[in-house]
């Protein structure tokens, strides 16, 4: 079936986008039932990016949040549509780069998450230990001082990251890495929206983190940024990992429908069996 047309939205995209939006919402609700500490409300967006590229995923993300509003479940969700759109763009470029097709060795996944958690611990610690000087300027402590004062925190973070990468992420290291970075970018874009429109709270469990950062003396915008960079990367990492695992398990015939997946098809040796999960 050849559906390539002058516009970007051919019938395959038109059929996939509504399904992806519904997946975003259904999985988001499923996770709430399971009481997992993630939102996972962008799996459909990441999937569209992996299969059909950045622009179609951008539309999927933005329209997802508009649907949350139209359904009347969560009317203010429309404010975060730009964040969802950017997630789609990043997932699409990651898909073009073949991130969802390449398997990484488990030790590499371990090192990726280990280094990420180490950097995150450094960020959070320098944030919590920051002080204001006489002029009211924020003084960020020296990274070397932090490392020597509380080495345990950083060792624990690094080891936890190694374990997370080795046992949870396994072969999805490349997808997980993009997911972690995507989470940081999403946090940076959503922090101002959360701070100015929502006063920095969501009414959910992550508000405890915001309260903790506020207690350390940070402003509303800074607290939100810190909260986002702590919780968003793991949420996006999980979404990317799930999309990677599902694409690995998809039949060839289904993948053939989607140009992005087809372009990188050659990366997987034909003889290699599809890993089962």
């Amino acid at each position: 079936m050849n559906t390539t047309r002058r516009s970007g939205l051919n019938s395959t995209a038109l059929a996939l986008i509504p399904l992806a939006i519904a997946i975003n919402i259904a999985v988001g609700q499923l996770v709430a039932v399971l009481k997992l500490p993630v939102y996972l409300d962008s799996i459909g967006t990441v999937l569209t990016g992996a299969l059909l590229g950045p622009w179609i995923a951008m539309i999927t993300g933005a329209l997802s949040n508009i649907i949350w509003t139209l359904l009347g479940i969560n009317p203010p969700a429309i404010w975060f549509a730009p964040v969802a759109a950017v997630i789609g763009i990043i997932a699409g470029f990651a898909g073009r780069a073949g991130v969802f097709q390449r398997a990484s060795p488990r030790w590499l996944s371990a090192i990726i998450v280990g280094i990420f958690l180490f950097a995150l611990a450094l960020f959070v610690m320098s944030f919590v230990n920051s002080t204001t000087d006489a002029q009211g300027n924020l003084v960020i402590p020296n990274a070397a001082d932090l490392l020597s004062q509380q080495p345990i925190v950083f060792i624990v973070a690094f080891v936890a990251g190694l374990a997370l990468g080795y046992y949870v992420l396994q072969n999805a290291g490349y997808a997980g890495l993009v997911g972690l970075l995507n989470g940081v970018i999403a946090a940076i874009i959503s922090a101002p929206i959360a701070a100015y429109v929502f006063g920095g709270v969501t009414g959910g469990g992550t508000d405890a983190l915001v309260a903790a950062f506020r207690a350390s003396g940070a402003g509303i915008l800074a607290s939100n940024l810190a909260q986002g960079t702590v919780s968003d990367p793991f949420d996006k990492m999980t979404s990317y990992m799930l999309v990677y695992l599902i694409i690995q398990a998809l039949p060839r015939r289904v993948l053939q429908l989607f140009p992005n997946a087809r372009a990188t098809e050659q990366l997987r040796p034909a003889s290699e069996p599809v890993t089962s999960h």
Partner: protein
Amino acid sequence: MQSAYIPGTSLLHRLHPLTKLAGAALVITAIYLLPWPLAPLVLFGGLLGLAYLSGVAGPFLRTALRVLLPITISLFLIQGLLFPPPSATPLPLGPITLRREGLVFAFVTSTRLLAFTGTLLLLLETTHPADLVFALTQRGLPSSIGYILLVALQIVPNMTARATDVLEAQRSRGLETQGGVRRVRALVPLVGPLIVGALVDVEERAMALESRAYTAPGPKTSLRELVDTFSQRVARWLMLLGIAALIAWRIVMAL
């Protein structure tokens, strides 16, 4: 189709969707631009009155409270009581000391959110989503975007039901959904069937679209008809002028 729409025959129900959309845009602009702290609350009162006249006051209040109560409580606790700005004015009240600026911030943010949510809810509860999308496509929204929105609204209940089915089926096969970080990997057998099922649908849906010449160029007819009147057209222009005037007024005030 799952949506916030509640069927009815009130004046608000009968208005052209674009008139209501322009009205909502005007109210939202006013919520965020009017300088008086009580303005959002007054506007919300007006919206509640309109909702009562349109016969949707019950669901209107219920959804607004369900969405905003947790946010409001968090706001007052975190930004209002516990961590107000350091230079805030103390406001002693019995054994605890409140801070004026913190409470004002929490109040302004939560009432703005309340009025914003109320505006959208009133629009959506009195307008059938298909009418709203059709009105927008008549004014230049790409019909593909309209199609995506309407289909998504239609298949969300199906997809949610399918997700519940998959969850129950996997649990009956002994899938652990409780305990440990590794249960994150338990999401694979839950999300996998959902996505694979959807992707298998894609081909069929795409063929259905092609066989109905959906992507063919040229004008299309619609089963829906919207009633528009001259007075509504004038009202829309006036409301758009009102938005422009509000923005201009605030810019002049800021200079």
